[in-house]
Structures are given as structure tokens and as C-alpha cells.
């Protein structure tokens, strides 16, 4: 091969390495961008009057007289809609049977769609579900719902090789020639006066409890549940991990037993997370009976087991990084081995240990599979501290799964799902960032 060819190959080899790293960075950006952009939409969004009414009625938030004036204005703007509906209904009731047959079904559908958009029609009985007691609280959802009022979806299944194709048919056509025809342009032109959209910052999304299966309110129960599980897991894993690391670094001599022990630790690190979940169910709940069914305690123990190897490794590394001179100095001053460990080695290794544990804390916070069978429920109230021993809890990781796949109205609460993802991901990334900064400080101190 000629020299130029070899140089070309060399350069393209370098290029492929850089390409790989660039692809990794791109993957990270592509992953995080939608989470951050759409997740922010759970907190910063354009809210309608219905959102402010909800806040006022449930939490007594906001300026009451001003809000009441706003609600009145919105009601005034909506009055023609309801009048037209009532007029048409009266006409239908008094009109002939053929007309009734023709308009009854489309009219009922239209009324339902308008209720979804604007909330219950005045004078109607109060609906049972909270999601039906209010109109659309978010302007972006309101736009979608408005188009459902204006247009009817029709699915075309005539082509068997493809899935159904959706066509939008204007609803005006259903009511052509009736008094209701004027309703559609009125709705379209006056929707902002009926819903009074305004930019809102809903910080309380993080601290409000959720209402009606996450249709309203925030994600506090999930945040609290994740917090309990993570702290609980650390309470178990940290002492056990540090003690094991002390033993492995300071006491253990190389022997067959220690070798097996190390193999066991790395095996534990490699066990699939779902297997931990099954083990937690079979051992902590069914055998040890730490709680009668799922509980935060059982979940925390399972998570602790999962992160134990990481904590042990991190602590071991941190203890090994303490200069041997520290220990020798302590011993030469007459301190016993145990004394030297407690007063000299551990304090010196503590920042390193914390760095490692912070990363495993992030892992415990984000892991879902181990808590499915041991701790997580889909809907729940925020727990008090003494309830963690007996009660299951909602948690961010589990509820992201649950809301994104099993919720009855997955599309309606997309913003809540993204909000949860944002909170979880930023929690984990912040923990990692803290670890990175801590590590940088430690390495600077050890060098300088």
C-alpha cells in the first residue's frame, strides 16, 4: 500500500471515531430536546379561564373579584352559543318526526363536543367526573377540541392495504339550512372571548396533588413517592455498601472466599432489573412479609439491593484513593485499625463515596422495573412519613409508563406525561451533574 493510501486510511479511522462521538452527542440532544421543550409546557403554557376557575375553586388561588369578572365576561360571550343550542332543541322537540330523526344524532354529538370544549351547559345537572365539570384548561387542547366541534372525523377503510385514512367533514354541512348554521362561525370567531387565553406559569404543577387521574393538578404524589423510594434505598444501601467496601479494602486478604464474594457482587450488578422486582415480590413481600402487599419499604429494599454493587464499587474506589500516608500516620500515632478507619480514612474518602452514591441515587430514582411488583401504584394520595411502611405509592418512573400507555385518555394528558419525564430526567441529570462537579473538586484537591 502506498503512503498516501495509508494516510487516508489513518485519517478516515480518526474520522470514524469522531463520527461515533458526534453521533452519541446528537443522540443525547435528540433524546433530551423533546423532553425539555414539551416538558416545560406542563408549567409554562397558555391557560384558559377554565384553568383559572379550577385554581380558584379548588385552591382559592388568584384574585377573586377580578376572576369573577372574567368568568362573567366569558359566560356572556358563551351565552349566544347556549341560546342557539336551546332554540334548536326546542325547534326539534316541536318539529316533525322526520326532522327529529335526521338531526337528533348529529345534534347530540355536537352538544357533547361543545361540553368538552366549554364545560357543562348552564342549567344541566353537575357531571360526576371532574374532567366533565370544567372545559378545556389549556389553550392548545382547546384548539384541538374546537376543531372537533367544527369538523367531524370520518374514517375511510376502503383501501385494505393501509390503515384507515381520516377525513375531516365540516359539521356545518350536517346542519345546513337550520338556525344552528350560524353557531359555527360564531364559535370559530369568538373562541378566545369565551375562553380568555392568557400565558400562565403554573409552578404548583410540582407541588399540587393530582385530580381525576391527572386531568387536573400537579404531580406531587409522584415526586414524593420517588423521593421516599430513593431516600429509603439509600438508607439501606449506603451503610451496607460502605461497610462492605471498608472490609474489602482494609481487612480482606486475597483468598478464595473474597474472590467468590467479588464475583457475587459483580453478578448482583448484572442481574436484570425486572428479576430484582420478582425477587422483591417473592422474598420481601411473600416470604419475609415486610408488608402485607406492595409498600414503599419493600420497594426501597429491592432498589437498595439493586444499587448495592454500585455503592460498594464507588466506596471501594474512594477508599483506595486515600493516600496510604494518611493511614500510616494514624497508625504510627497509636490509633487502632478501626479507629484509623473511622477518624482518618472515612472522612478523607467521604467526598468520593458521596460522588458514587449520588450516581446510584439517580439510578434508584429512575428505575421502574424493580418497583412494579413491590411498591408502585398508578393512583394515590401523597403519603405521610409513617405510611411508608405499609402503603404503596405512585412514583415518577412508574407513572410515566402508566400514563403513557395505560391511561384512559393518553392524548389528553400528554403535557402531564412530558412534565413527569422532565422532572425525572432533570432530577437524575442534576444528581449526575453534582457528582461530576464533586469529582472535579476532589481530583483538583488530590492533585494540588
Amino acid at each position, binding site marked *: 500500500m502506498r503512503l498516501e493510501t495509508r494516510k487516508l486510511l489513518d485519517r478516515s479511522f480518526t474520522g470514524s*471515531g469522531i463520527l*461515533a462521538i458526534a453521533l452519541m452527542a446528537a443522540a443525547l440532544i435528540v433524546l433530551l430536546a423533546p423532553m425539555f421543550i414539551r416538558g416545560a409546557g406542563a408549567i409554562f403554557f397558555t391557560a384558559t379561564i377554565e384553568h383559572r376557575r379550577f385554581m380558584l375553586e379548588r385552591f382559592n388561588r388568584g384574585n377573586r373579584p377580578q376572576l369573577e369578572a372574567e368568568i362573567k365576561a366569558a359566560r356572556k360571550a358563551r351565552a349566544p352559543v347556549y341560546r342557539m343550542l336551546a332554540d334548536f332543541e326546542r325547534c326539534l322537540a316541536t318539529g316533525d318526526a322526520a326532522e327529529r330523526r335526521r338531526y337528533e344524532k348529529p345534534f347530540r354529538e355536537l352538544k357533547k363536543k361543545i361540553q368538552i370544549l366549554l364545560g357543562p351547559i348552564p342549567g344541566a345537572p353537575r357531571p360526576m367526573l371532574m374532567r366533565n365539570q370544567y372545559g378545556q384548561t389549556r389553550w392548545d387542547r382547546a384548539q384541538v377540541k374546537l376543531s372537533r366541534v367544527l369538523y367531524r372525523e370520518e374514517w375511510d377503510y376502503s383501501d385494505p392495504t393501509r390503515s384507515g385514512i381520516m377525513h375531516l367533514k365540516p359539521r356545518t354541512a350536517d346542519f345546513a339550512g337550520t338556525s344552528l348554521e350560524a353557531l359555527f362561525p360564531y364559535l370559530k370567531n369568538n373562541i378566545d372571548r369565551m375562553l380568555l387565553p392568557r400565558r400562565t406559569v403554573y409552578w404548583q404543577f410540582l407541588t399540587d396533588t393530582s385530580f381525576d387521574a391527572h386531568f387536573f393538578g400537579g404531580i406531587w404524589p409522584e415526586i414524593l413517592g420517588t423521593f421516599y423510594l430513593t431516600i429509603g434505598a439509600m438508607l439501606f444501601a449506603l451503610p451496607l455498601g460502605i461497610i462492605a467496601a471498608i472490609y474489602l479494602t482494609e481487612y480482606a486478604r486475597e483468598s478464595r472466599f473474597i474472590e467468590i464474594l467479588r464475583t457475587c457482587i459483580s453478578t448482583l450488578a448484572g442481574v436484570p432489573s425486572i428479576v430484582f422486582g420478582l425477587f422483591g*415480590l417473592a422474598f420481601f413481600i411473600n416470604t419475609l412479609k415486610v408488608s402485607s402487599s406492595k409498600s414503599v419499604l419493600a420497594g426501597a429494599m429491592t432498589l437498595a439491593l439493586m444499587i448495592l454493587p454500585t455503592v460498594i464499587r464507588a466506596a471501594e474506589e474512594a477508599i483506595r484513593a486515600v493516600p496510604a500516608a494518611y493511614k500510616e500516620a494514624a497508625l504510627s500515632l497509636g490509633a487502632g485499625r478501626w479507629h484509623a478507619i473511622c477518624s482518618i480514612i472515612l472522612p478523607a474518602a467521604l467526598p468520593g463515596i458521596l460522588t458514587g452514591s449520588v450516581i446510584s441515587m439517580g439510578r434508584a430514582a*429512575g428505575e421502574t422495573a424493580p418497583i412494579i411488583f413491590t411498591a408502585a401504584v398508578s393512583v394515590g394520595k401523597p403519603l405521610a412519613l409513617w405510611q411508608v411502611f405499609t402503603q404503596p405509592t405512585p412514583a415518577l*418512573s412508574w407513572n410515566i409508563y402508566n400514563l403513557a400507555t395505560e391511561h384512559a385518555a393518553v392524548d389528553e394528558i400528554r403535557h402531564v406525561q412530558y412534565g413527569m*419525564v422532565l422532572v425525572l430526567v432533570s432530577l437524575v441529570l442534576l444528581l449526575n451533574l453534582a457528582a461530576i462537579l464533586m469529582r472535579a473538586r476532589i481530583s483538583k484537591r488530590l492533585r494540588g
Partner: protein
Amino acid sequence: MPTTLGTMQTATRIMPSLLLSHRTRLRQRVGAALGNGLLLAVTSLSMLAVFFIFFFIARDALPFFRLEGVREFFTSTHWYPSAGEAEFGALAMFVGSGLVTLGATLVAVPLGIAAAVCLSDMIPFSMRQVIKPIIEMLAAIPSVAYGFFALIVFAPLLQQQGGHLLAVATWILGLPLVVLGVIVFSDVATDRLRDRPRLVIRVILMALFGGGALAGLAWIGHTLGALKIASGTNALNVSIILGIMALPTVVSVSEDALQSVGRELREGSYALGATRAEMLVKTVLPAAAGGILAAVIMGVMRAIGETMVVWMASGNAARIPSPWYNMLDPVRTLTATIAGDMGEADHVTGSARYHVLFAMALALLVFSFVCNIISEKFIRRTRQQAKG
């Protein structure tokens, strides 16, 4: 440190009055003995945990094999756990797990090794400090967030624009490869010729092969571009996402392996006139092969044990794709089956439905255990080679 300590203790014994009071010494002795025992007990907990995991998973898995036998589980694809005549053929799940793991490996291994080589040998230290956090962040993002991305963002994209995406990816990855391949091939083929004819022949060869290869690439791109993807939740989606999740493991373990290969080997290689790429491919990579293999195995373990992504975005269809390598079909994996079916299985009475999930867990556990032992062996061997 045993020798230093021994001397210390003798010193204390000889001159007790000088160093410590009697009582302090006693306290220290008792403390040390107690501490030693306690430490050993606590440390053995993780060993106990591993035995317990094997024991409890196996204990609940064995009733299944006793009830239903072994053969059906591993060889049949009839998965009807809740039918009157329940059938528990899990072959489709084994194939599904294998398929997505294979796909993830195909994504993660080339990228991961290239990135590891780049990190350890091509990039200055300051750049490495910037890139390390990227890898750490990729490793830190919770699996459920990956799953959410796969289901909500990536699956619709794949369903609507999948063909075009694949075509663009083919061009991005294929074009440099093709250009490079054509240049190198025509160079090598004309190596022995004299100056003037060489140039002419090389240009002709380049035009011929380049044209052919480009036409081939265009054909592949066109075929992929015309592809209709019925559902975005399929094996391809999951494979790509799992590959990204396994990347950090592959990168960091193989970087460690590359770093443990000493400077001498690199310098010797340079001294013999190798370029950097030749040095890496011909000396360093073979020397680190054990560690890199371990990295691959650990990446495989990460992919096969992952639950949330496959549960959310693999489509969960309990059948073998046709043909078996068809990545565009939905699949169902062992982990997703355990996670999804446990809610319906009966905890209390312990039916076959419940125990079959433990049988799957046992299969996963044994697989990851074997993988772990093998990868440890490889890592140890690489370390010893680097030392001696």
C-alpha cells in the same frame, strides 16, 4: 498493610504505659474483633443476596417445570396463558429478546468501540473531560424516559417517515464507506504497476467501481425509502434505543481495556513506522481484545435485561417475526412478558401462569450469570496480559 500493623501491635504490647492506657487498649481489641466480625457479616450480605435471588427465583420457577414440563416452554410458540387449556410456549419471547439484543449489539458495538478508541487515543485530555459527561448522561437517563421517547417520539416518526429515515441513514453511513472503499481498492489493485499506466487504470477502476457502488447504494436507499412501516413500535425501534442505552457501557469498559494496554506497545508500533490507525488496529486492539469482548458481553447483558423500553415500544406481539430477522415486525421479549403478565397472574394460589414468569426470570438470571462469569474472565486475562 499487615506488616506495618503487626509491628505497631508489638510496639504497643512492649510499651503499654508509654502509648496507651490499659483500658483503651482493651477497648480497642474488643472493638477490633467485634468490628471485624460485623464487617465480614455485612459484606457477606451481598453474597447472601445473590444466593437468595437464585434460590427464590428458582423456587418459584420449578413448580412450572413440574406442572408443564420443560419442552413446551423452550420449543413452542403457542403462548396462551389464560386459555382454558393454557399453553406456555415461550419460544417467541426468547426469539424476541434475542432479536432486539442482536439489533442493539449491531448499533452499540461498532459505535461504542469507535468512540472508545477515539476517546483513549485520538482526543486530547481537555476534550475528553467534555465528552465523558455526555456518556455519563446517556448512562444516567432512566430507562422509562428512553421508553417514553421510543413510544411517543420515535415510533410515530418511524411509522410516518421510517423509509426516508432509513434511506438517509444508509446514505450518511454508506457514502463515506463506499468512497473510501473504492479509493483504497483501486489503489491496492494498481500498486504494482508503473507510474503512467497506473494513473490511467486507477481512474478507470475508480469510475467503474465507484459508479457500481453508488448505483448499489442508490438502489438500497430507494428500496428503503419506498418502505412502508406498518407500526412504529417494532423491533427496529427498540433495537436502536437499546443500542443507545448500551453504548455507555460498551464505551467505558472498552476504553478501560484500551487504556490498560501499555505505552510500550504503542511506541514500539510507531517506531516500526505504523500510522496511528495501523498501530491501533494491528497492535492495541488485538492486545485489548479480551477487555473489548467483555465490553460487548456487558452491553448484551444491558440490552437483554432491559424492561421498560421493550415493554413500551416493542409492540408486544408474542410471535416470531417472519422471516425471523425482520426488524420491522413487532416482537415481545422475556422481560416485557414478566412485567406485563404479572399483574394478571395469581399471586396467592401460585398457578402455572404465575410460575411461568419466574421460569422466564430464571432463564434471564442464568444467562446474565454466565455472561458475567465470562466477561470477568476476559477482563482478568486482559489485566494479567497487560501486567506481565
